[in-house]
């Protein structure tokens, strides 16, 4: 809500134009012959023959995979590949045309059906890279392990030919899950990628790249990196939320209206729709979509209609022509752009697809138009190549692929990870666990020195503990609070790391919905802190793309309840790419998530447990200013995805535990260490989130009325989690209540309880008791006490399940019979 943008009722209510005009979207307009292209100097005959070769490589590569899947071998050499193989026979011209104009500075993102695209991009990179550079890339990759096998029997001495072997072998080894593969075999067929050639992750979630690629473009723009980003999506993906949200994000007006200086202008993102006519068995045109052509989508997003264009994907030269023109647009900051590439998939969705949804006639008609045969014919007709030359190319391609195939299936040369022998190998790859001050070399762009910032000045006048020197409570206005702790860590990092950016639904002038960012607007230019569209999938998806390209980012999800809106990004993308890349990628994303209360069923849920369930995420939930600052510092110093939960109940709370208050300087609290907030000896309370304060009240009552001393431990971090302190405490007390605001069923509380039971069994005087919220909708604020764990519930649990308290009358029903009854009813 920038004040500089005046919403003029005069203009809004009485516009000059009374209809919305759409620009025309060109369809299949390319009409040049090979000779014309030669004449214009767009290609040399050699270039044209390489295009033919690249298409032939892709076709043979996938033929090999198809034969392995359907006949159990290739050229008489048996192999069983149990993994997926989503083939793209028929789409070779589209892939090669897409890649032709791209350099290694240009990134491509793909889908589950991207073998063709990565091979095309790889072959093109090998073609244009200086030999020395290519050699360096190959020699340094996995310490030369991949090259050693790929070049084992090669005596030719031609770096480019060696490069082709390297590419084919690396991709095959990856598909066959070998450690010499591009991602150590952890990505596989649907995720193979190779960043030195500008090939970024392919995504097995349809449309997954739709927002991630936009984030990569954002990285290039904000950090002034060369190159454009291409998202290769299928026509089926155009129905997916991440694509539509990603396109929304990429279309934001602010790039032109509010971003300043060299930051002004569109994102360098090009969506390439590989329109192969089918989405699984569904036909996008005529059945499952209503757009007739995917290109029409551009018209919905911005006045330029994304410069959308529909081109002939059966002619590589037509595709090349389109990409050349769009790339030039993006480089002029006139993006984003969309190319709808018409193609056809001969192969089924996967080898199990019997193509029962289409006729033989249809497939034969398209095969008659085959892009490789057709293009070869044109080259012969134009006198660029003889049929013999083309046959020789085909023979070379078949030879080299067969050779690489034999190497890639060799168990000795191309071993798999031994996860049985080394149980922890993959576990150790889940997180990068590094500690890096700044991910960029540039000087961080800020508007003024930190000490001149109004918020920084305001905090300087605050008392950093909840009591003053005389032990009297500090007034809320003068008290350093939780939001100050988060702010201090974040502003510090903005002044340290030039790559750091933050965005979400209202992050700027308002100061964030909960005023954590107040003051940041003054300190930071638009491109480092901005408001995003209300599109959680895009907020997280773009952050993933931004981070995997090398930037640090803090996306914000305003309410925990909205995590579902970016479910795929949080659960399928963010946690996975570090390990799936074989640790090539890092994921320095700190997702701030605010946990609500008072706002009913869709704004008051604690979904921390959902995040703990997904391997690959670190999950943090501090509830004191000291912990918030220290843990945020650690999260921002690291390179792992951290879901950083904040409770809306506590933004105003002061520091009550850390002696001396919250330090002014920088300090880190390591992720994974629970903290003893109060010592005791009779029972342990382990809490997650804001429940800590209710547990402390319960501890007070327990002490006053029953002389029992509770030890209160704040989990602080859920993943990772060091059990040592909890074990020591339970050994002392023999009893533990694990409490948090998540609905009890299926929550992380139960995970803690199960582990504690195993780890402390002989020391337990009663089974660990889990106190979570009821398995209901969160009722309105006035009724919340019946829903969230209350202080009395702790005493009830002790009385009913641990040791009866004399004369105590329980408030809630914590009896085993009730427990069974509720479970029976599913509540």
């Amino acid at each position, binding site marked *: 809500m920038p004040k500089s943008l005046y919403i003029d009722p005069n203009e809004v209510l009485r516009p000059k134009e009374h209809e919305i005009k759409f620009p025309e979207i060109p369809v299949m307009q390319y009409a040049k012959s090979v000779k014309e292209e030669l004449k214009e100097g767009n290609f040399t005959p050699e270039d044209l023959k390489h295009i033919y070769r690249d298409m032939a490589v892709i076709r043979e590569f996938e033929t090999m995979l198809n034969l392995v899947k359907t006949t159990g071998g290739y050229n008489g050499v048996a192999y069983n590949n149990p993994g997926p193989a989503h083939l793209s026979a028929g789409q070779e011209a589209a892939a090669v045309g897409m890649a032709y104009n791209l350099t290694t500075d240009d990134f491509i993102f793909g889908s589950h059906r991207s073998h063709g695209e990565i091979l095309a991009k790889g072959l093109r990179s090998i073609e244009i890279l200086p030999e020395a550079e290519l050699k360096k890339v190959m020699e340094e990759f996995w310490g030369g392990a991949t090259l050693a096998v790929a070049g084992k029997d090669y005596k030719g001495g031609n770096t480019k030919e060696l490069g082709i072997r390297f590419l084919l072998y690396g991709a095959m080894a990856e598909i066959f899950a070998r450690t010499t593969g591009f991602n150590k075999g952890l990505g596989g067929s649907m995720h193979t990628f190779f960043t030195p050639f500008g090939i970024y992750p392919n995504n097995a979630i349809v449309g997954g790249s739709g927002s991630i690629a936009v984030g990569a473009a954002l990285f290039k723009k904000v950090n002034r990196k060369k190159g454009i980003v291409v998202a290769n999506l299928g026509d089926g993906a155009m129905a997916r939320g991440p694509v539509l949200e990603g396109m929304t994000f990429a279309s934001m007006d602010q790039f032109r209206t509010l971003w300043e200086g060299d930051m002004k202008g569109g994102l360098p993102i090009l969506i390439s729709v590989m329109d192969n006519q089918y989405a699984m068995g569904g036909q996008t045109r005529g059945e499952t979509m209503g757009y007739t052509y995917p290109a029409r989508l551009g018209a919905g997003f911005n006045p330029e209609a994304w410069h959308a264009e529909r081109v002939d994907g059966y002619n590589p030269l037509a595709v090349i022509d389109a990409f050349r023109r769009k790339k030039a647009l993006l480089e002029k900051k006139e993006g984003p752009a969309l190319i709808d590439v018409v193609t056809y998939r001969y192969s089924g969705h996967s080898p199990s697809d019997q193509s029962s949804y289409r006729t033989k006639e249809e497939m034969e008609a398209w095969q008659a138009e085959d892009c490789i045969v057709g293009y070869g014919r044109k080259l012969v007709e134009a006198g660029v190549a003889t049929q013999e030359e083309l046959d020789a190319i085909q023979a070379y391609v078949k030879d080299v692929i067969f050779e690489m195939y034999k190497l890639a299936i060799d168990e000795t040369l191309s071993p798999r990870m031994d996860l049985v022998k080394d149980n922890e190998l993959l576990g150790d790859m889940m997180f990068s666990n590094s500690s890096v001050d700044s991910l960029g070399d540039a000087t961080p762009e800020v508007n003024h020195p930190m000490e001149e910032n109004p918020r920084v000045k305001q905090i300087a006048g605050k008392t950093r503990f909840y009591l003053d020197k005389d032990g009297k409570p500090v007034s809320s206005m003068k008290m350093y609070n939780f939001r100050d702790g988060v702010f201090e860590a974040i502003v510090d990092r903005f002044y340290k790391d030039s790559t750091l950016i933050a965005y979400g639904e209202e992050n700027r002038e308002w100061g964030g919905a909960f005023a954590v960012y107040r003051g940041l607007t003054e300190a930071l230019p638009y491109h480092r802190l901005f408001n995003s569209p209300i599109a959680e999938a895009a907020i997280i998806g773009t952050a993933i793309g931004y981070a995997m390209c090398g930037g640090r980012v803090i996306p914000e999800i305003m309410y925990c309840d909205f995590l579902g809106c970016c479910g795929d990004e949080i659960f399928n993308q963010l946690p996975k790419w570090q390990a799936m890349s074989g640790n090539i990628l890092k994921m320095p994303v700190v997702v701030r998530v605010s946990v609500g209360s008072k706002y009913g069923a869709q704004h008051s849920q604690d979904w921390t447990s959902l995040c703990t369930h997904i391997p690959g995420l670190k999950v943090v939930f501090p509830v004191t200013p000291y912990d918030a600052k220290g843990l945020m510092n650690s999260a921002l110093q690291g390179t792992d995805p951290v879901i950083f939960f904040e409770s809306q109940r506590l933004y105003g709370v002061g520091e009550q535990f850390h002696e001396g208050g919250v330090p002014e300087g920088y300090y880190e609290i390591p992720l994974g260490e629970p903290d003893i907030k109060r010592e005791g*000896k009779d029972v342990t309370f382990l809490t997650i989130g804001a429940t800590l304060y209710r547990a402390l009240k319960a501890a007070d009552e327990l002490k006053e009325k*029953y*002389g*029992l001393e509770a030890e209160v431990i704040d989990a602080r971090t859920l993943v990772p989690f060091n059990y040592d302190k909890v074990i020591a405490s339970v050994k002392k007390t*023999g009893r533990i209540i694990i409490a948090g605001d998540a609905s009890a069923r299926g929550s992380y509380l139960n995970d803690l309880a199960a582990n504690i039971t195993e780890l402390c*069994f*002989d*020391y*337990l*005087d*009663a089974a660990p008791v889990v106190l979570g919220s009821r398995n209901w909708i969160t009722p309105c604020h006035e009724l919340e006490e019946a829903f969230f764990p209350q202080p009395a519930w702790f005493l009830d649990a002790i009385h*009913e*399940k*641990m*040791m*009866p*308290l*004399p004369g105590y009358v329980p408030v809630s029903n914590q009896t085993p019979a009730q427990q069974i009854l509720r479970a029976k009813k599913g509540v």
Partner: protein
Amino acid sequence: MAHVIIMPKQGQSVENCIISEFKKKVGDTVKVGDVLFGYETDKATFEEESQVEGTVLAIFWADGDEIPVLQNVMVIGNPGESFEEFKPVAAAGIPSETHRPSASSLPPAAPAGPSHSSGHGRPEVSVGIPASADIVPDAPVSPRARMLAEQKGVNTAQVAGSGPGGRIIARDVEAAALAQGHLTGLAKARMAAGGFVSPGSGSGLAGAVKGADLKVWKPSHTEGLPGEGTDYEVVKLSNMRKLIAKSMYNSLQNSAQLTHMLGADARQVQALRKKAKKALEEGRLDVNITINDFVCYAVIRALQAFPNVNSHCLGDAMRLFKCVNLGLAVDTERGLMVPAVAHAEEMDIVTLSRSLKKVADDSKKGSINPDLLSPEAASFTVSNLGGFGVEWFTPIINLPQSGILGVGTIVPRPKMVDGEYRFVPYMALSFTYDHRAIDGGEATRFLKKVAEEIENLDIDF
């Protein structure tokens, strides 16, 4: 060089001894053979004589102190010699003050029950702990309570649970541990094994409960039944009584006992007794050889011919003795005791008589060596009730021994002598044997042999 005097270990089962009195004080000169201090176990009193000469340099304890065996007691040497290095390191639970004045000559009674300060800094969690009357058989026990019970020697079967659903939880075990007092290692092990209950305070130092202080416990016991009825009173058993009870009960539970009875012509024994009495009166003997001594002498002879009877039955093996260690049942004020006379087969009647008298007297005085009271110490036992007029009875075997001979009174019985019936004094012999070890035939032959030995005793003295 200074010599340290330690508390001797009197018997395998003795853990601590009480100093009854120091006979020397610091600075006294000591000669070899001087009595340094007297001390007592729960069953016997002893005197420690000096083996060295010198001056008493240090005494680490006071009269009435209970001292773990093998602990340093005092130091004798030349004046000026160092003795600090001998100062005993206080064992856990035993006060470290070495010269504290002792409040009494007997073990101080430990305050019973929860009022006894816990020493753990733990507040009294006395609330809601049910009385022992609330003990529920097979009550659930929390893992922590189970672990604590093992550590503290608490038998959870004796504990009432205060947790949800009657679960025995840690505080119940802690309270029980407090109530049963400080246990010695042996007592803990016995408690944990079950079958015993702690009296709360024992005869050990600071009221520590020793293995011997433990009382036999059975779940169905009337332990703790309150008060007195109009027609009866409930009197708790003494420790001694309980030990006897346990051992007698065990004997009948764990062996196959039956008794054979046979009379022996007592004329020869009576003649010998008359002779001995006369010799005593005339001063030719300094020992009063009793009828029982003659009977024992005869039994020893018979046993030597029946190794199976002179034995221990070990269940799957027999311990056959090459000597005769004769146990003698002695009725004392404290209850039945059975001291043993070792190698009795080597003794003539006078020596045997002296030995039997000594162990009987020692038992009555309480100064008997505890090791001699062990059932393992004797290979066979004789119990004589003849003096009280009992004719026949069924004595109970002192396991693991295989047999026991009950000697009854002498009554006149008709006997065919020289073609006519005359009254002849007969001695009643009741032989109880463990049928696991001995068959009826052998038992009969053995008993007959005893009778023959008695009838044909031919001894000079």
